[in-house]
């Protein structure tokens, strides 16, 4: 298991290198001059200040050297300062990451708590009313954009019924109840698509496993259908489900950009959107880097989970 994970870790090194290249290239292409952005509109005609700022930001150096300096500083934990607010990027990220992680975690829990049991029931009773309802829910869930779900929920629960706040994040320190009330609508909006995809996958893979010969043998031994599913089918059926959840983590993080913007959440997603609109390139580099690393770490965890569930993978 350790060797398998070490091999996966080694594989991530070139990928992380290329991720940094892509981030650097994109932010280099961003229109607008970062030195001018740092100086502000008041000093736009001050040539000496402009040249000093370019030097300070390293913009007078060749691009490959700028890249190497950025990576070097990033490895030491220095991601620069925001062009807009002048705060340290790492500090801003550290303050906002917990909000996004909590939002993503609650969305994941909501999605899985519904998706897995419903998927199992659907597969155990194909073409039953539960199965039909679940299929309609799954097919619709995939087709609904997160921001439209968010708007519908705001209208229903905040404007019409007035039972939940329309926007804003209440930290956990202010009380669990208030925190969950503030996070419920954004988490449902974010988790709906994941719920739909996971439900479909759980149903499809369990249906496939239930047609295997060893399941027929288990049934022939006289085991109840519940025991057949629980003891024999479920573990094998869950392998493709883990793959799908792992693949959807990126979508979950991506979705926070629009959901945190709608619900005015002070998280990484909103920071990403703001840094794009304000051409805050050091902040954008930092946010995108952390999000990409988070996706890679989740991929690694998915691989570890695979190896745990399926011994064939770790011994291959």
């Amino acid at each position, binding site marked *: 298991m350790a060797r398998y994970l070490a091999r996966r870790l080694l594989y991530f090194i070139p990928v992380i290198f290329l991720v940094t290249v892509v981030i650097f290239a994109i932010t280099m292409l961003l*229109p607008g001059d970062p030195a001018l952005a740092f100086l502000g509109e008041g000093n736009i005609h001050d040539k000496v200040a402009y040249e000093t700022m370019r030097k300070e930001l390293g913009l007078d150096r060749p691009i490959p050297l700028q890249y190497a300096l950025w990576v070097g500083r990033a490895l030491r934990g220095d991601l620069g300062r925001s062009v807009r607010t002048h705060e340290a990027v790492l500090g801003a990220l550290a303050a906002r990451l917990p909000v996004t992680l909590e939002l993503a975690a609650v969305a994941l829990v909501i999605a899985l708590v519904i998706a897995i049991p419903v998927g199992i029931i659907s597969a155990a009773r194909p073409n039953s009313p539960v199965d039909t309802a679940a299929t309609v829910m799954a097919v619709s869930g995939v087709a609904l954009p997160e921001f439209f779900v968010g708007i519908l929920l705001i209208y229903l629960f905040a404007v019409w019924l007035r039972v939940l706040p329309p926007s804003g994040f209440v930290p956990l320190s202010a009380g669990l109840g208030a925190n969950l009330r503030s996070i419920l609508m954004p988490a449902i909006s974010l988790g709906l698509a994941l719920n739909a995809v996971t439900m479909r996958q759980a149903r499809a893979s369990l249906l496939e496993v239930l047609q295997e010969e060893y399941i027929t043998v288990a049934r022939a031994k006289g085991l109840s259908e519940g025991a057949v599913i629980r003891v024999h089918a479920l573990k094998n059926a869950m392998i493709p489900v883990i793959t799908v959840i792992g693949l959807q983590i990126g979508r979950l993080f991506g979705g926070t950009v629009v959901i945190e913007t709608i619900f005015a959440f002070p998280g990484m997603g909103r920071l990403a959107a703001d840094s794009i609109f304000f051409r805050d390139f050091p902040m954008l580099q930092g946010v995108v880097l952390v999000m990409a690393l988070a996706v890679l770490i989740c991929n690694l965890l998915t691989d570890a989970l695979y190896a745990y569930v399926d011994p064939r993978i770790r011994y291959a």
Partner: protein
Amino acid sequence: MTARGGLRTLLGGVPGSQWGRLATFLARVIRTRGSLFGLWVLALVLVVAVTATLIAPYNPNRTIGAILQGPAWSYWLGTDHLGRDVLSRLVFGARVAVLAGAVSVGLAVALGVSIGLVAGYRGGWVDDVLMRLVDALWAFPTLVLALAIAASLGPGLSNAMVAIGVVFTPAFARLVRGQALSVREREFATAARALGAGPLRMMLRHIWPNVLSPIIVQSTLMIPQAIIVEATLSFLGLWIEPPNPSWGSMLRQAYQYIERAPWLSLFPGAAIFSTVLGLNLLGDGLRVALDVRLRQRGTV
């Protein structure tokens, strides 16, 4: 196997003339109510997009009545915050959705297929380098990468489509590489190589026709996703070219008036939902029709 062989693969080896086989194949695709619904939705959206100038009741960018009017006889879907006809804007928004879906996925297919074919056929270090690059692109959350690329390219629908195309490239590159790797080892490929077929001929005449059907299925499933990403980008206000309408930007504007005019959000949202739903169902129908294993099992 040649391009004609590829069509044969696509049509699942059904006997008869080419048109007859195409009809049989289509009948197989629309066997379920879902994919039939999907086909109707696709046809409707295409017709609306193509004939927008003829069927829209008003100029979508002109104020034609009082602001925020509810659905009425003169304005079927009401008017927006500037007194523009919502139905006309919805009709013209279909053009953006169709363009965004088709062009961005077309670009992703072109880039992804080229990368996948070269990586899968050449193998070795070329494969390693290209696939690590694909993995790096895959590591980014789709929306974040699309936002960042679109922002760096500047505003405009064309740049948004390029951004979405680049973001969707890894899905096609991985798919085609996997197929190319397996096709490369098959007997007909070895025979073609023995007869002196060069790399370009091998890729275009022998491997490409064999990867065609998974690409068609993948494209049908990616187009609705591209429509959602485009709508999200315009909802966030990234590529807006005022006053031209897109479903995402209509939702962005409608959201500001959710208390006074909730129906305004409903129409563009329902347009995105039904288009994406229809295309997803059609994609599923195509997948089942092209996959003999799924068809025989009948469980999907």
